[in-house]
């Protein structure tokens, strides 16, 4: 009897319950992923700090466009939490609608990034050279924004799978944790962009 009670208490206090293993796993993955981005940004800082001829990003990159892209990701994070809230209340239809909007936000973000890259490449910015100064400016820019863009692409595919399963009626109130875990990934991508926007575009 006492054993049962102990077990119940443990299950409540520890996140290591079978129901939250997915969430725990996602957090562990995100911690590792955060280190990858952390390393990229720290490397960027070290390279830039040692360069005399580093261009001022806010003068050569389009801040207005990227500020809008930041705003777009923040909006998509809001639709994501609204979608999770909907499925927690058992409204699968509303959940698919909100997640659809989140996917739309991500897709527009990617479209704008493709536009931005095309524009910069036409102006002579490449992985190994650029018209404004230190050649590593282009290298770090494309590596960091590209790595983030790949994450957004992954997120859009991830959410599309969730939406498809939602339409098939496979995501119910009991399986809302699937949406929560997908949301964690999506918010993380938003969080990383906030940092990338500051370090690569603003400073």
């Amino acid at each position, binding site marked *: 009897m006492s054993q049962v009670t102990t077990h119940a208490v443990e299950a409540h206090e520890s996140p290591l319950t079978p129901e939250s293993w997915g969430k725990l796993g996602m957090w562990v993955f995100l911690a590792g992923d955060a280190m990858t981005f952390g390393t990229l940004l720290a490397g960027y800082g070290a390279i830039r700090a040692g360069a*005399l001829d580093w261009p001022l990003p806010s003068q050569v990159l389009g801040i207005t466009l990227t500020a809008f892209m930041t705003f777009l990701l923040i909006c998509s994070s809001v639709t994501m939490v609204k979608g999770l809230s909907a499925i927690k209340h058992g409204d699968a239809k509303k959940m698919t609608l909100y997640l659809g909007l989140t996917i739309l936000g991500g897709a527009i973000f990617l479209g704008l990034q493709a536009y931005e890259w095309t524009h910069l490449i036409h102006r002579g910015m490449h992985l190994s050279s650029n018209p404004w100064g230190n050649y590593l400016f282009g290298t770090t820019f494309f590596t960091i924004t590209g790595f983030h863009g790949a994450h957004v692409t992954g997120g859009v595919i991830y959410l599309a799978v969730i939406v498809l399963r939602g339409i098939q009626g496979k995501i119910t109130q009991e399986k809302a944790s699937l949406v929560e875990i997908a949301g964690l990934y999506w918010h993380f991508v938003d969080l990383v962009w906030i940092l990338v926007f500051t370090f690569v575009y603003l400073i």
Partner: protein
Amino acid sequence: MFTDHKEPNYMAVFFALAILTAVEIGVIYLPIAKFVIGISLILLALVKAALVALYFMHLKFEKRTLGIIALTPLLICTLLIISLLPDLTGTKHESKREKAAQIEKPLAELP
């Protein structure tokens, strides 16, 4: 399955994030020292990142174990930055690409 917490006011978080983004854009045009602008921008970004993690990712309402996992990369990144300090504060130099090409050329001509 879910920690029963009152749903945070997501719209308030959204407006805070949007306003902070606008402030960031404003800060870069302020006629103050570049160093001060840089520090302000980093602080603003950290506040925004914390808002996303605490409210959108529900870290504020989660058990401590997840918080510890989330803080681990922050700790390691701090150590990384400390270990990079010599590079971050060392002497600056022009990009050596042209010079490197000049040096490499005679070497390449060697048999």
